[in-house]
């Protein structure tokens, strides 16, 4: 629970203000802020109580909070959300109106959809769009069970999910990255498979320096990992990793800090970081260079669609939102997040 203390001051005040607005006694008395207990306990209590107000705040506020929260904080909020899930999910499923949309799913898609939701809310006064993250699997499961109006998934639908409807809003590509000082300019698919399955453990075997390879892999459940495994026809039990990472930035930092590392991350993030001078380079797949442009044209093989998923043919507000998310008017938002708009 110690990790939660990071950035507490602003968040805590934020939450206390929200609580006060719930109980209707603002302005809140300062002694209630400083009066009790340890910081950790206080945070847990305030989080619990702040939960019901999440639906009150706008997407803008929520997005700000998402960006400010470090992983552990988000995780904690997630825990608290689960705590109250039994109560909240029932009411949210039943009391859903024409003024509220609930989207859950992929943490890759969520930041993009949050930006879209902000713009959508400003264009449709009185409408509230609630975006929660939890991975593609959760997005699809929630859409299937009707816990969310729209699920978000950073992959195509699988065969067993045929009854769902998917709407692509953008594309994302995954590319293999090396440290900038690594002399290797390209690897064949077979070499990458051999490196990741532990058959090749030294760079000299693929034409590089005599140095052990540090294999950087993603943690289970990440859609980047799924795409990578699927493309290279590997299973997660075959992979012999030296480092397992969570998000793209951590992967880039790990590779940039180790000249013998190999990893894979989202192209958008990698291209941006490489152009910002971080010591990584993007390897082509086959003969196709890893670039956002090649993802857009669909020629880059290691790419995936970012989908909005619904249980039935969307209607009402959900249909309006999906149409909006697929329109030209959000292409600037897609590019801002280093994803690639879908060109019809």
């Amino acid at each position, binding site marked *: *629970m*110690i*990790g939660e*203390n*990071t*950035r507490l001051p602003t968040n805590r005040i934020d939450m206390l203000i929200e609580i006060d607005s719930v109980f209707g006694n603002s302005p809140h008395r300062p002694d209630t802020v400083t009066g*009790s*207990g340890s910081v950790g*306990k206080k945070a*847990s*209590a305030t989080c619990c109580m702040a939960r019901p107000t999440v639906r009150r705040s706008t997407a803008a506020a929520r997005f700000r909070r998402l960006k400010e929260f*470090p*992983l*552990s904080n988000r*995780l904690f909020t*997630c*825990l608290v959300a*689960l*705590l109250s899930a039994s109560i909240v999910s029932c009411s949210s499923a039943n009391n859903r109106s024409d003024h509220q949309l609930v989207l859950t799913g992929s*943490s890759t898609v969520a930041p993009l959809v949050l930006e879209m939701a902000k713009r959508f809310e400003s264009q449709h006064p009185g409408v509230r769009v609630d975006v929660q*993250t*939890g*991975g593609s*699997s*959760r997005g699809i*499961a929630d859409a299937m069970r009707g816990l969310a109006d729209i699920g978000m998934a950073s992959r195509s639908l699988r065969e067993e999910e045929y009854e769902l409807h998917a709407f692509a809003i953008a594309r994302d590509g995954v590319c293999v990255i090396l440290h900038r000082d690594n002399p290797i300019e390209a690897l064949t698919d077979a070499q990458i498979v051999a490196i990741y399955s532990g058959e090749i453990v030294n760079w000299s075997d693929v034409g590089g320096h005599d*140095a*052990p390879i*540090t294999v950087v892999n993603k*943690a*289970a*459940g*990440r859609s980047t990992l799924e795409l990578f495994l699927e493309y290279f026809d590997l299973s*997660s*039990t075959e992979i012999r*990793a*030296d*480092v*397992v*990472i*969570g998000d793209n930035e*951590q992967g880039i*930092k*790990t590779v940039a*800090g*180790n000249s*013998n*590392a190999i990893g894979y991350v989202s192209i958008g993030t990698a291209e941006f970081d490489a152009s910002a001078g971080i010591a990584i380079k993007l390897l082509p797949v086959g003969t196709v260079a890893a670039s956002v442009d090649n993802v857009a044209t669909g020629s880059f093989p290691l790419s995936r669609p970012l989908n909005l998923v619904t249980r039935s043919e969307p209607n009402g507000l959900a249909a309006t939102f999906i149409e909006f998310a697929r329109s030209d008017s959000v292409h600037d938002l897609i590019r801002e997040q280093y994803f690639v708009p879908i060109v019809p």
Partner: protein
Amino acid sequence: MYRSYRDQWLLWWIRGCAVLAGMIVLLIAVFLLLESLPALRHIGLSRFFTDPSWHPAATAAQGRFNLVPMLAGTLLAMTGAVAIATPLGIGSALFCHFYAPPLLATAYRRLIELLAGIPSVVYGFWGLVVLVPLIARWQPPGASLLAGILILSVMVLPTITLVADAAFSNVPREYLHGAAALGLSRWGTIRGIVLPTARSGLLTGMILGTGRAIGETMAVLMVCGNVVRMPDSLFDPVRTITANIALEMAYAVDDHRSALFVSGLLLMVMVIALVAAADTVSRRDGNG
């Protein structure tokens, strides 16, 4: 009259606070148990220790759920960190209390307090961009048990130092005066009188530090490499239980999610054992 009314009010307010604090802990424990139940029922406790590996899946039959390498990772990182931080912490508290001139001692104490206040992500980020590349140049891949131990010991150090410092302040003045009257040297006083008297305080500090080391997530997640495997050496990557929960929580469903709650339950049991140990130690010392 007025006074007793105020007392009543205060009494109920304090009772309310106590109940609230107690309830939160109890609710968390109950919640953990409830969420763990599906995994305990479908997977069974023994499989968490006998399965061939940790390759979780949404259903019990498809996944493999061996927690032992992660338990080992947690325990090794924790033990290593406490083993490094304890002598350093007690040493610096001794320096602060008995050797440093008052002005330096105050400044030093503030510095240690500052160290305690640095958020764990900052340590983690520093570890990721400085410490790990440094180790990688010497013993690749760098992200390793060693990196975790070093980061954790820096994080645990202020806890142990501050508690040790407080314990030294609690040594009765008469003992020190007595030692001075007997003509004991400074080190003789420390070894013969201060350390034995402050023993329970020092142990409490160690246990608090251990608790922090067990629970730490972010920093460890960033520097340990997170590969689920029994480490053969200090330079092998490890994954701790907390890091595992943080890495997989957002993506886990059904039995996998429940299995993560089981690992959380294990952590809780470890912390309860620690608290019990701390309690026993301080009680035995109080009686003896």
